[in-house]
């Protein structure tokens, strides 16, 4: 049954990747990165149990803690960008 969950997660990952490659706006791609991050947390947790080594949940924990820093950095980047080039789009 772990397999069913893993397959669902992997399929969702490929959908997110499709969104990342298709765009069209840059924010769609950031959204895809964020989705992919959550899916990676899930995948790592499920596979840790699939392998029977639940002590490896540290990895999923690390991603759960720091994965959103990238999106915050994007917010700051966009904020500074808009201040600097007020006329152009990203």
């Amino acid at each position, binding site marked *: 049954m772990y397999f069913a969950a893993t397959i669902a997660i992997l399929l969702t990952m490929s959908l997110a990747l499709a969104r990342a490659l298709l765009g069209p706006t840059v924010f769609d791609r950031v959204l895809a990165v964020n989705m992919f991050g959550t899916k990676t947390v899930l995948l790592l947790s499920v596979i840790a149990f699939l*392998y*029977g*080594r639940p*002590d*490896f949940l540290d990895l999923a924990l690390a991603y759960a803690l720091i994965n959103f820093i990238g999106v915050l950095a994007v917010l700051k980047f966009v904020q500074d960008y808009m201040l600097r080039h007020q006329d152009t789009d990203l």
Partner: protein
Amino acid sequence: MEFLGLYNYWVFAILLMMGLYAVISRANLIKKLLGMTIFQAAVFLLYISMDKVDGGTAPIIQAGAVDQLYSNPLPQVLILTAIVVGIATLSLGLAIVVRISETYGTIEEDEIRKMDEE
């Protein structure tokens, strides 16, 4: 599944050459650095693929487990340090690109070369 036994190495070859392509054919310096990270990742993949043993598990010895197979720890040690060294060298490269951009106003290689010739 026998024919998939070399799949990791094929992916390694393709990634390696994609990274190389980005480095040699793109004029943008940041794009070159991104190509370098892909190249690096391909090498990491090669090493980590070699550590896998059928029926093995990560080389953290479990108390009480008898006759447990473990994957090869040596490539893992080499790649673990290489990842952090990779980010350090990447940041050095980015710093150089930033300085180039401040001096020349561009990060396109051909434009920089043109300015140098003038």
